[in-house]
């Protein structure tokens, strides 16, 4: 019988059925960070348990690390205590820790792929909802809670029910100035922030076939913002090429065996799906959010919605969002003054994001009064950027070039909005208070749109600011 990748991976990792009907599922790769794991280790100690498969858990530190301070102790004693706790837990239980001193530290969803730990046909879990990112490799990545981290540490398994699979097929071409970020913002806008509840999203079609691994990661990353716990792309030559030679990728004869095995996990041609959605690449505009969840998005050319003209069921949520965002109802979003530009995060903090922006940023200056920060997603990304001189391009334009971490995506480190500042952000969430100020405001967009906002001081169309319409479609 023809099967989807999700079904094949699930079956290969299913241990047995539990008494409540769920499946005991083997999770081959467990990633941990400093925020959601310390309590899990505490629970493990309380129960007198050990880590069952220490060689299958990998740790890094990302959420709380300052991006402008390398030396410890950190100014924030709470941040330092979380750092210390993670070090202690990894040492005591024999877990590999990509600490800052290793040169391999970074956002957990950037480090896993970069090290070649993320591989096709595997199950991956992390106490972080953006674990869906790893699906770009044809892995099944689950975001989990802390009690489940305990379960994984103790048994390398967790209790899960199966998901339905929705194939989202994007064919055709993306227009100039339209990026992977726009694709996922458009998908979430179209299907809703809870449209994916109960589903794994399988992304496919000509646009995904052409996408690089980093573009696939950007899309899979935000699956959870559409309610889908899991998002994936079937593995292909692009996937294998990315993985070959990375530190944890198989070598020699084991490489050939692995590639053959990985290919076998891809969805079969005749597989049946619980749902299929088709989108034309040409129909996707540069998309920005105007509200307080990632589904409240519009094309850069559209107007902010107004309560009066909204469908009855949406009036209350539109009114709440408009009140918080202080944007003019019914008016264009283009031209809205911004205070901060943030370039980074597990969504758009990879090498290609910085390369693309640097191409257009060269010779431009951040507008007066705008605070702009560029935060590479990992130490590895930072080094590659420096080798290409990108750090200088950003710095010369007026961006602060920082060290690796989650930074202002969720502002658990010192990078925070102040008061009701408006931030043009390449991150993934525009929730109330998300960027560190209870009244701070976020507009999500692609990295190049962030650059366009930074240099004009306003929400702007990157195609106009950087004269993109002339370049060829990608």
């Amino acid at each position, binding site marked *: 019988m023809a099967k989807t990748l999700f079904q094949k991976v699930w079956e290969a990792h299913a241990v047995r059925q539990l008494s*409540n009907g769920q499946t005991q599922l*083997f999770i081959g790769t467990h990633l941990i960070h400093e925020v959601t794991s310390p*309590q899990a280790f505490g629970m493990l100690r309380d129960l007198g348990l050990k880590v069952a498969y220490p060689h299958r858990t990998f740790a890094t530190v990302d959420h709380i690390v300052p991006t402008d301070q390398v030396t410890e102790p950190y100014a924030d004693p709470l941040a330092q205590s979380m750092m210390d706790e993670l070090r202690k837990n990894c040492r005591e239980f024999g877990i590999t820790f990509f600490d800052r001193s290793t040169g391999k530290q970074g956002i957990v969803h950037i480090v896993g792929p970069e090290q070649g730990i993320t591989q096709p046909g595997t199950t991956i879990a992390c106490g972080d909802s953006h674990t869906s990112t790893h699906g770009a490799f044809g892995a099944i990545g689950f975001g989990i809670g802390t009690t489940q981290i305990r379960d994984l540490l103790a*048994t390398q398994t967790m209790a899960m029910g199966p998901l339905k699979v929705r194939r989202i097929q994007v064919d055709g071409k993306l227009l100039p100035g339209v990026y992977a970020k726009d694709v996922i913002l458009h998908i979430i806008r179209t299907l809703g922030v*809870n449209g994916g509840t109960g589903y794994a999203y399988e992304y496919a079609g000509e646009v995904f076939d052409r996408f690089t691994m980093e573009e696939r990661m950007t899309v899979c990353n935000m699956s959870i913002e559409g309610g889908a716990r899991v998002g994936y792309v079937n593995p292909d030559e692009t996937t294998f090429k990315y993985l070959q030679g990375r530190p944890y990728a198989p070598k020699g004869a084991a490489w050939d065996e692995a590639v053959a095995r990985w290919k076998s996990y891809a969805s079969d041609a005749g597989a049946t799906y619980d749902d299929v959605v088709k989108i034309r690449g040409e129909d996707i505009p540069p998309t920005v959010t105007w509200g307080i969840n990632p589904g409240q998005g519009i094309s850069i050319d559209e107007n902010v919605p107004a309560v009066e003209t909204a469908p009855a069921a949406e009036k209350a*949520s539109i009114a709440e969002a408009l009140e918080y965002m202080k944007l003019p109802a019914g008016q264009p979003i283009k031209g809205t003054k911004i205070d901060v530009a943030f370039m980074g995060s597990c969504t758009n903090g990879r090498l290609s994001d910085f390369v693309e922006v640097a191409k257009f940023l060269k010779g431009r200056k951040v507008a007066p009064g705008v605070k702009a920060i560029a935060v590479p997603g990992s130490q590895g990304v930072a080094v590659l950027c420096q080798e290409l001189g990108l750090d200088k391009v950003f710095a010369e334009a007026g961006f602060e070039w920082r060290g690796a971490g989650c930074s202002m995506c969720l502002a*658990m480190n010192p990078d925070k909005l102040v008061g009701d500042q408006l931030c043009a952000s390449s991150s993934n969430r525009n929730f*109330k208070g998300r960027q560190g100020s209870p009244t701070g405001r976020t507009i999500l967009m692609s990295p190049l749109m962030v650059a366009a906002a930074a240099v004009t001081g306003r929400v702007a169309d990157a195609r106009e600011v950087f004269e993109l319409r002339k370049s060829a479609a990608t």
Partner: protein
Amino acid sequence: MALAKITEVRGRAVHVPGDDIDTDRIIPARFMKCITFDGLGEYLFFDVRKHADGSPKAHPLNEPQHAGATILVSGANFGCGSSREHAPQAIYRYGFRGVIAESFAEIFFGNCTTLGIPCFSVSRADREALAAALAADPKLEVVMDVAKVEVRYGSKVIKATLRDSAQKGLVAGQWDPIGELLDGAPAVAKVGKSLAYVAG
């Protein structure tokens, strides 16, 4: 591991209106700078409940008539966003033992169930009727019957939905799966050996 059989949650309820209430709103990220879950209850809904100086804002949880409520009522897609278990931990430590909403985000639902917090989904009309009843009488006793998967208050009986596996686990006192997962060790080892990337 012996766990309580959770067959019902009974008590007063409070309605926190709104759809898509995310876990950043339930507990802002800055309160996750901790290495235990102790004391998280006081930060529940912090930024919508309190001003920067700690003084209260207008919020249902700040109204004295709702003090001591054990059931939280809200809108669609409750608990979306971050997977932080700090959110259900804060809800539990504040004193809530059950949540009734139009629908729940996937990860949040699982995190709640593992802590023994039943999450019932009800229709919009039923939620609005319950909210109106609570506004009229904040002392109203509400029952979440986990065995029958229904909500009762006054003379009303509302049909709710609860995922089968969650219902079974709560009622049987097996909502935390760790005991059963540990029991599976021999079968787990077998699967581990069958996976090339795990066996090495």
